[in-house]
């Protein structure tokens, strides 16, 4: 296989990786607000930041965010509906639409939903890829009625 040849001016391309687009590092506040010994709170970066954001999106109800009534995964709604009124596909569609509309950093790979009507529980696993790094992340969300 022939070796690539570069001019003298471009010779350093062989030793450095080519960055086609400016990479952006995602940095967000850790919403658990756990503080370090210095008193600062922790940061979430890259896939951890995105994962926190997706979880945040799914657990936000419609009309909860000021002046954005259609924002949110609205999963809590299903907890208070009759179990005959919806099925796994409804939950999946809801999650997919919310992520597509509000989280441009990820591409959804798979959504698994398990509805447990007897224990008033919905378990959701969302597998998505962080677009900028191609990292695949799995997020488990479980929502259950307290009583």
């Amino acid at each position, binding site marked *: 296989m022939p070796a690539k040849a570069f001019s003298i001016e471009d010779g350093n391309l062989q030793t450095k990786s080519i960055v086609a687009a400016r990479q952006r590092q*995602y940095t967000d506040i850790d*919403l658990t607000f756990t503080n370090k010994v210095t008193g600062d709170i922790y940061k979430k970066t890259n896939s951890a930041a995105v994962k926190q954001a997706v979880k945040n999106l799914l657990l936000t109800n419609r009309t909860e*965010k000021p002046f954005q009534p259609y924002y949110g995964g609205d999963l809590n709604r299903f907890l208070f509906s009759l179990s005959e009124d919806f099925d796994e596909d409804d939950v999946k569609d809801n999650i997919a639409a919310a992520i597509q509309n509000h989280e441009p950093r990820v591409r959804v790979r798979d959504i698994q939903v398990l509805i447990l009507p007897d224990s008033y529980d919905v378990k959701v696993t969302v597998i998505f890829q962080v677009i900028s790094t191609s990292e695949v992340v799995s997020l488990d969300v479980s929502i259950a009625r307290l009583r």
Partner: protein
Amino acid sequence: MATIQSSDLDFDTIKSRLKTYFQQQSEFSDYDFETSGLSNILDVLAYNTHMNGLIANFALNESFLNTAQLRSSVVSHAEVLGYFPRSQTSSRATVNLSLNVTDAGRSATVTLPAYTTFSCDVDGTTYSFQTLESYIATDDGSGNYDFVTSVGSSNIEIVEGTLKEKNFLVGDVADGQVYVIPDTTIDTSTLKVEVYTTATDTEPLATYTNITRAVRIDSTSTIYQIKEVPNGYYEIIFGDGSVLGQQPVAGNKIKVTYLSTAADAANNGSVFSPDSDVTVTVSGVGVDYPLSVTTVANSSGGDDKESIASIKNNTTIAFASQQRMVTAEDYKAQILANYSSYISDVIAWGGNENEPPIYGRTYVSLKFIDGLTDDQKQNIKDQIVNNLTKNLAVMSIDTVFSDPTEVYLQLTTRFNFDPDLSNLTTRGIENQVTNKITEYFDANLKRFDQVFRRSTLLTEIDKISPAILNSRMDVKVQLRQDITVGTALNYNLYFPVAIAAPSNDEYIVESTRFTYNDQTAIIRNTLGSNTLQVQTVGGVTLVSNIGSYTESTGTVSLVAFNPSAIVGTQLKVSVTPANQSTIRPLRNYIIDIDAGLTTTIAQVDYQNTRTTLA
């Protein structure tokens, strides 16, 4: 250094400013993703700032009379300026009341007690009306008793409302007691405040009067103020016991009676039935006889509390007048503040501005609401003189009432109409134009001091539809004159505008039809002359000189005019004004439209520019 700009009020801008701040530092980069935790925190911060900004804005708005929206704020600002907004007012009717007692031994006089009640049905609901004072009737010798007022009039006013009574026991003055009447439907003009020495006394120590009717206040004055409080109830305030009038002392009882009203719902009642008979002493024994009621004037004048818009308008004028009647605007402010449930508009002018000038007088013209009788109107005028001008106006200045003079406009409107640009017929678009003219007069004229401007109306007409291509309007001004038929009399009609100069082509002055020497005739000016003639409709001259008109003064004079009959109740005389573009009313003139003599003509115009003149 990065700073946060926070001068805006709306949520999105505030949040945008916060994002701008985060753009300037490198610690967190997820501020512009709506799903991020940082965005959620920015939401909270922006929402908090937004709400604080709004509250500050609302609070500031409520701090000024001009911008306040809440009634409680507007009323409070008005009271600071000495203006007490009008409460609900009761509907009032005028009736004649009489008894017929034929039994021998009847007493010479009969007293009808105050608060005698009558029932009246208005639109399926029964309302209670009552007298506010007692009336006495005297036997005419035949057993007929006609009740009369203290000044001898048989016209007795009955007032709608339910009589209510509240009693307050006065505590220690140091307690700063507040006397609140928890009722939003009070007609404060019916309020009667009596103070008793103790709770068990039956005769009042003093009857207090409203401060608005007080001319002079000193330590002995028995006056009270009544004002609307923020929840719509009313509060009674007494003097301070020293310079601002007497103050009830501890142990006194305050008895307040008033009418709780149904406001305008009880207007237009016409049949009043007494709820009880009247007891007449016959040979020492009380015998009940039915009261006979004759309605003189239907119930009217009931109205809701003064509106917020009205309070805002009247407060500033009333403040400027300082509870005195000196300028023309003072008269308007005081009269409207007290009688706006009967009077829709007022204009006043000094005798020096009158034609002819008469010094030492103030002329007032009142535009009453519809439905009042002449007696009711005269009663209001008497009240204005007795309650307002005698107390508040400058000494030696008499108040003279002058009835409004209606001046009518006859409009001939022609407009070009392209049927291709509309789905309306010619008749349909003509009706729309006529309706627009009526609307314009209702909204902009029919009140004192309102000027007719032709171009403004034509602009409104042009805006009705793109199919109206252009428009023009001929304007005539019309006055109406009562005519005594069968008697030769002189009549002068004073138009509020200059009249056009004589023309050789068209008549400047024209009247409606009347009968003269058994012929149907009209009055016209001679073409090219100021002389007026009586002509047949066909143009044959019957009287060559029946008077003249003067252009500059706008006067039409008829001399020895003696028709045998006229069409309608009044003779309508119309003139072409010197300036048709602007008709400006003088003093007590009110501009209205004569719809019967107003015409609208559409000229079909397909905008065909290829047509040539023949």
